[in-house]
Structure formats: C-alpha cells, structure tokens
C-alpha cells in the first residue's frame, strides 16, 4: 500500500490540481449567485454543459480527423477562442435562465423551495433539450451517448517532477484557470460593478436605497458566473475530451461542494475549495479505486457541513474588503 502511495502520489497530486482548477471555476458561479441571491443555482451545471457543447461544436467543425495538429501559438489561440465562445454562450444562457426561471419568482417573493423546484425544472428541461433536440440536430448523433472531442493539445511531457510528469495540457488548464480567476477577483474587488455586487450581497435593501439596480446586478452576477462555467467547460473539454447531456450533473454537485468547502459566497474560498476537493478526490482514488471518487467528494461535503458549515475561509462576499 505504501509503495503504491509513493508511486502514485505525485501523479495524483498533479491530476488533482488540474481537476481542482476546473471545479474552482465552476464553483465561482455557485458562490457568486449564492452570495447575491441566497439561492443555489441548481441549473448551473447545465450552463456548464452548454459551454462544453459550444467548444465541441467549434472543434468538430474545424477537425477533419480525431486529431487537430497545430503549432504552440495556434494551439493557444484556439484554446482562447474556445474559452471566449463558451464563456459568451454560457454567460448568455445563464442570463436567460435567470430571466425565465428565477426572476418571476423573485418578483413575487416566493419561498426558496419554489426557487429550488424551478431550478430543478430548468435543469431537467435543458438536459432533455440537448439530448433530444440540439445534439441530434447539430452533431447528427444520438443525444444520449457521450460525444468525443478531437484532440488539439498534445499529451506530451513538459517536465518531470520526481517520478511523475507534468503534461502541456495540464499546465494550460491550471494557467488558464488561474488567470481567469484573478481577473474575476480583481473585477469584484476593484470596479464599480464589483462594488455593486458586494453591496447587494451585503444588504439588498440598503443597496437599492444607495441607487444600485438590483435587477442589473443580479443579471451581471449570472453573466459572470455563467462565463466562468464557460471557461471551465472549454478547459474541461480539452482535458477530458468528451462530454454528454449529463456531463454537468456530478461535476455541478462537486463544484458546489467546493464552494461550500471554501466558504460559500467567497470567491477565493471557491478557488481553495476546488483545489482541496480535487486533491482529496484523487488521493482517495489511490486507496479506494477511482470508482469511489464521487463517494469521497460527497463524504467530504457531509463532513464539512457538519463541522464547519461556513467553510474553510468563512469570510463571505458580503464582507470582502474593497
């Protein structure tokens, strides 16, 4: 056992960091919406799914075989294009989702239960819409089977670390995720929009009195959260190379776990939570086998909520200093 641990530890850690960055990006959407509206955006996982489909569509339309050969510059450019396109479509879908599924309820002051049911309904609707209508029409395949994406980043060793190796694709995922997260963090901390978001999270009524348009802030929050899921989806598709109509379900729950783990409503907490979850999951797979990874994630969720429901960092979006 100890020997396996020694052999696999570094490799698992690198894999965990990669997975964790993707969880962290998706977790940002949950954490922002929760911070502002006190609502778990249950359909956020489908926003992620829409992003993977966007990336897949672009890749599939330029690929002639299962492998796109590119130089390093063109490769990064393509990745940027995928991230941008997915972010736009995911962000847009998130705004539409808010408009259709949440705004009417918010205007009526309905209970949280109603909002949750509405979110579950929207989630089911989007999954089935893709499985039955969009995937068959766009990709010409059955929507219920996983769709493979062409490879455009080589799985070559960039540099060795101990007995493990770091690959180009892994570095790209981590760098991409970190840059986007830093940009978002600065946006929320330094800009006017960010101040509006923080004010709304802190006290919606006082924010209205101070001239903040809640509807606009909520829309921007959904847009930003959706865009983060879009970026995550492009990186996910590059790294794991397949998607399907249900890709978001388990990933969404794990990202939410990451958000809770770091302290929901806290952007930096989401980053930390994502990385921690990715690492714990991969390390547990060494001992238990990878089929138990999902169970580990849920057990971590239960334990965190039991002992520290405010998460590791605890500080929330409401209290983030200017």
């Amino acid at each position, binding site marked *: 056992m100890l020997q396996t641990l020694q052999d696999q530890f570094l490799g698992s850690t690198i894999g965990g960091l990669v997975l964790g960055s993707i969880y962290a990006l998706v977790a940002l959407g949950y954490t922002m919406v929760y911070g502002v509206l006190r609502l778990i955006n249950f359909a956020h996982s489908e926003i992620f799914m829409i992003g993977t489909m966007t990336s897949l569509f672009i890749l599939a339309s330029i690929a002639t075989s299962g492998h796109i050969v590119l130089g390093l510059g063109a490769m990064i450019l393509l990745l940027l294009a995928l991230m941008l396109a997915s972010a736009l479509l995911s962000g847009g879908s998130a705004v539409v989702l808010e408009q259709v599924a949440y705004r009417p309820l918010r205007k009526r002051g309905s209970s949280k239960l109603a909002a949750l049911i509405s979110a579950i309904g929207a989630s089911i609707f989007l999954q089935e819409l893709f499985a039955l209508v969009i995937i068959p029409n766009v990709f010409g395949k059955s929507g219920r089977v996983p769709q493979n994406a062409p490879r455009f980043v080589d799985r070559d060793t960039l540099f060795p670390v101990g007995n493990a190796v770091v690959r180009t694709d892994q570095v790209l995922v981590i760098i991409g995720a970190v840059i986007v997260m830093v940009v978002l963090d600065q946006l929320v901390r330094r800009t006017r929009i960010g101040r509006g978001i923080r004010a709304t999270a802190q006290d919606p009524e006082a924010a209205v009195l101070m001239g903040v348009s809640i509807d606009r802030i909520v829309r921007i929050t959904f847009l930003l959260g959706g865009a983060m899921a879009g970026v995550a989806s492009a990186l996910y598709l590059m790294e794991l190379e397949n998607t399907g109509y249900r890709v978001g379900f388990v990933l969404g729950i794990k990202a939410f776990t990451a958000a809770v783990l770091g302290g929901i409503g806290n952007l930096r907490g989401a980053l930390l939570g994502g990385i921690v979850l990715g690492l714990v999951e991969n390390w547990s797979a060494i001992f238990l086998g990878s*089929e138990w990874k999902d169970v580990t994630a849920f057990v971590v969720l239960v334990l965190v909520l039991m002992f520290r429901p405010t998460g590791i960092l605890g500080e929330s979006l409401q209290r983030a200093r200017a």
Partner: protein
Amino acid sequence: MKGDGVTTQENTRRSFQPVNGARDWWQHAPMWQRYLLYIALIVFALILPAPWIGSFMSPASDWTSVLIFPIGTYILLAIGLNIVVGLAGMLDLGFVAFFAIGAYTVAIFGTKFGWNVWPTILVGIVLAAVSGVILGAPTLRLRGDYLAIVTLGFGEIVRITANNTNSIGGARGITNIPHPSPIFGMEFLLDPAPYYYLILVAIVLVIVFSVRLQKSRVGRAWAAIREDEDAAELMGVPTFKFKLLAFAIGAMIGGFAGGIYASKAVFIAPDNFPFILSATILAAVVLGGAGNLPGVILGAFLVAWIPERLRSVEWLRHLLGDKDPAEYRILLFGAVLVLMMALRPEGILPSRQRKAELREGTGGMGSLGGEVAGPDTEVAAEVAK
C-alpha cells in the same frame, strides 16, 4: 389578515372558492357523512383498475400496471416525503435513498437467504428508519439549502455504493426477486391486480398513520418547527428530536414503498434509483401543495400519470414528426415545473396554513424560506460550539 388585498392574491383566493367551500363543509360535516365519503373513495379505488377507465386513462400501456408503478408508488413516496418537507419543513433531495434501501433489503433477503417477502418488507422499513437516523443525526442541524445538498449527496452515495459493490450485484443489479407468498387467498404472480390492491392497502395505512401523526402533539411540534425553528426551540420544543423523528418516519414510508416495488419488479438495479426520482417526488409534493395530504396525493398522481398519458396523444405524435412523445415527457415535465413555480408556487391545493403565510409574505415555508446560517449569524456560533 383582512384588508391586505393585493389583487393577484385576491384572484387566487376567488378562483379556488369551490375548494374552500368543500373544506368548510368537510370541517363541519357530521361523522356519518365523512364515513360515507371514505367508503365512496375506497369503492372508487377498488373499481379503478377497470378496463373502461383504463382505456381513457392509459391507452398505450397496461392500466393496472401503471396504477402500481408509477402512480401508486409515487403516491406512497410523496406521502412519506410530505412528512419531511410539508409537515416538518426540511428540504430532502435524497429521498430515493430510502426507497432504494427498502428495495435492496427485500431483494437481498429474498434471493440470498430465501426469506418470505412479508417479513423482509418489515426489515426494509426498519433498515430505512435506521439509515434515516444515521443520516439525520449528524446533519439535521443544517437548514434549508445546505440540508438539501447534504441529502442529495447521501442519495448519490447510496446509489454509487450499490453500483460499486459486487456482492449485491453491482451495476447489473439483482434478478429473480421472489414474489410475495399468497395472503388472504390472493396469489402474487404475473397478474398485476393483487399488487394494485397491496399498494392500495399500503397507501390507506400510510394516509391514516400520517393524518393521526399530523393531528397529534408530534404534528403540532412539526408545525412549530416548520414555522420558526428558533422560536419553537425557545418555547421548549425539542426540535432536534422531532426533526429526527420526521426524517425517520419519512424514511420508513420510503422503505415500505421500496419493498413493495422490488417484490413487484422482480429485478432491481442501481439505475432504478437516480437523483431524478428524488426530484420528481419532491416536485410532486410541492406541485400538489406541501403539507396538505389530498394535494400531495393529487400532485403525485399528476406527476406519475401525465407522462404516461402523453405516450398516446396522437396530435402530439404528429407535432413531433412521428417521434415517440414518451421521449419528450421529461422535457415537458421540466418546463411544467418552471411554469408552475412562476404561476402558482404554493401548489395546486395548498394547505390553508401555508397559504396564509404566503399572504403574510414570509415565504410560507418557515425554516425552508429562512436564512441559511451565514458566517455572521448566531446560528453559526451555535453550530461552531
């Protein structure tokens, strides 16, 4: 509460005048009238599998089978979940776990040890209750959304564990689950009719049980917890104990439904217990009107029946270009949920108490609508102790 007449709410009230009238009548009806109605309902339930009803209700598939699953099973599950969500006000997204535990108990004891189905159903109920306590004891201090996510996680843990454990069939599931042995001269084999009567008896038992509970001291404690947990605690209600009780009783009913389901289905696999089933049952409860038993039963019936009925709607088939409308039923279900919550979030037949709360603007679900413990609330300090 008078004179707060916001027009939309006035309209809702007026449009449901017949329902209110019926309720007023029911409250003042003498005993013999009530029993007459009970008898009429039971007679109606007994003749329900008749082919002439089935030919309208379910032209595409066998009506009696549809009455057992999904309709009967969903109603049973919804009554169980209503105790947790509607009466005690806890949000449970992993209810399917208890259904699975009941079903797996019957399957394992029946196939591995050759037990008779009847005692295994009882064992399933007990095991479901025990797992309800095991899950509830550490997590029920959480509220609202957090509780929902933890229970969702529990449901997934149960499903994935069943999927990965080869000694209970793994992903292939368990086959050849024995049918129940004959009871009162009824043979349980391929004919669905005896199972229908079995599930009918189960529903009636669970309804009686649920109503008695709701009217007892326990039910009042649940109502107090649902409306304001902190206030209830301060008034001397041992909230944790009662929440755990509600969770365990809900789990028992879920396990009961699972046991009946497994003995009818003969074959079960982890795929029979997906998250979507939890969501569907929760939707049935909310759609019908959480906390109001007739509403919950109506909700479960509609959620189970409408997709079955859509299988055989000819114009829908033409509209979809000869694709099977059954494929689109989940899509429609999702859309209906969103629409329903936007138009009538309190459900089709809301309980009067909840409707009054909604009118007061408190969100109407007590602790479900309340704030989740944030970093700067006293609740957080309590939890941290």
